[in-house]
């Protein structure tokens, strides 16, 4: 957080953002008065229980939902402009690879849509598949790959657009813990190498603490930010860091935040 910085110098800047849906039972406040800054190169996680609006907030940043109040800027642009400029890459919980395309063709898809020529496409596909350790799988179809490999391919696809910002919505939520640990490690290495800004949605406290420079603890009804916690862990993080007192203390702070934000009467 850096109060008073101009939005143009930030990866993401959210000011007094609200979003409510009209339903038969009245208005549902999915997001209420959100203020948030993400600096370039930061790794920011949104964590909170179901219904806290963490995915909705990410979808507003990606111009997949329209806010009912407040403003959002992505790399100094409106979310709509940022989307048209392909300023971000989005990774969903499901890899969402197209089954009729090979892995290489899947990674090339956004590049085809951008109208890049064949040589540039081939170069970017090869480079980004190498980045996620998927060389040699170019001509496989998605169903021939494990869930973890499919998700790596979808990350390569997001990176191939060469965005400054990566939006990841519980990308490892459907994977088992061993694979998830491995991918978390790889993601940190990738982040260090590419210097992208990352916004990451998760349910997992240890995942949030392990990956993030900043952890945004959210609470439901209405969806709002309860607390923003800056991590003092070093950027170099082997998996063993999760046994250190500093890590455990940070995880405890996040857990306390989640509990305090959980209004009495909620389940």
């Amino acid at each position: 957080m850096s109060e008073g910085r101009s939005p143009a110098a930030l990866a993401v800047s959210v000011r007094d953002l609200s979003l409510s849906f009209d339903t038969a039972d009245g208005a549902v406040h999915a997001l209420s008065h959100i203020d948030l800054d993400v600096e370039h190169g930061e790794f920011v996680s949104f964590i909170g229980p179901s219904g806290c609006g963490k995915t909705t907030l990410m979808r507003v940043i990606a111009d997949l939902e329209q806010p009912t109040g407040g403003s959002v800027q992505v790399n100094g642009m409106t979310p709509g402009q940022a989307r048209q400029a392909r300023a971000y890459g989005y990774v969903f919980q499901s890899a969402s690879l197209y089954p009729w395309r090979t892995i290489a063709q899947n990674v090339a898809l956004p590049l085809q849509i951008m109208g890049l020529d064949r040589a540039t496409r081939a170069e970017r596909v090869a480079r980004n598949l190498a980045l996620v350790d998927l060389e040699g799988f170019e001509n496989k179809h998605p169903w021939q790959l494990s869930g973890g490999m499919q998700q790596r391919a979808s990350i390569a696809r997001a990176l191939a657009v060469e965005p400054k910002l990566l939006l990841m919505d519980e990308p490892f939520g459907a994977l088992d813990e061993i694979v998830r640990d491995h991918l978390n490690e790889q993601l940190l290495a990738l982040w260090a190498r590419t210097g992208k800004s990352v916004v990451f949605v998760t349910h997992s406290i240890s995942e949030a603490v392990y990956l993030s420079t900043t952890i945004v603890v959210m609470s439901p009804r209405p969806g709002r930010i309860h607390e923003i916690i800056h991590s003092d862990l070093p950027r170099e993080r082997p998996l063993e860091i999760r046994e250190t007192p500093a890590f455990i203390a940070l995880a405890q702070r996040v857990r306390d935040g989640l509990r305090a934000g959980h209004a009495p009467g909620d389940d």
Partner: protein
Amino acid sequence: MPVGTVLLVLLVLWYAAAVLLNLAWERDQRERAGELAGTGLVTMVAATMSQKRPVLPAPHQVAIELIDTTFGKKLSSKRSLVHHTGITLASTLTGFALGTLLGVGLAVGIVTSRALDASLMPWVIASQTIPIIAIAPMIIVVLNAVGVQGLLPKAFISMYLSFFPVVVGMVKGLRSPERDQLDLMRTWNASAWQTLVRLRLPASLPYLFASMKIAVAIALVGAIVAELPTGAVAGLGARLLAGSYYGQTVQIWSALVMASLVAALLVALVDLTGRMVMRRSGGRA
């Protein structure tokens, strides 16, 4: 071999029905000639299976007629079943192709335009509530009045029947991509056209081939029905109509069997094409 057993049972039932249904006429004939008392059971049963115009011809009678009119006649002969099948097949395939094109076109319109979705679908459904047997003669007459004759009016009726399953299947297929896949297209700022060509159309292929299997079978029905009001000049429909004019039940049945063989073949061909396309596009099947 459960399939073989079922087939055998059906064959036995057919023979039994043929004997029962044709027996009355045999008895009647012999009674008039005063020979009924002197005719043994075996002779009677054998006679029911070799009538010229039986109420229900026995399977082997149909088979002999089928083989004779298929292989025993010159292709140019009006008695050749291959000649008639070819004529029906030509309008079936033309109508099927037109119907598939029309169906895909309508489905793309319905999926991409909210206005077309609301306005078109009721008409598509209404079109199928009209009995084809009622509308076919009118289409033939109207088209004839504007100078369209021969293959096209029949193909038009095949198209009228076969576009419907294609529309229904393709609308479902074009809407089959998941929300994440559509959202991804949006994050890449893909145009509606790119989303259609890169995502919706490839995703709809399995639905298209399932629909085309139904469409090709009813295209054949359409072509046969269309041949009835044209004065029964040529085609499988003409064979059916001429057969019924002259009480040629064996001819009717052999035309029916030929029609179902052709339908089975067409459906199998569409199925095979579908499998090949799916395999080429990375399907598991």
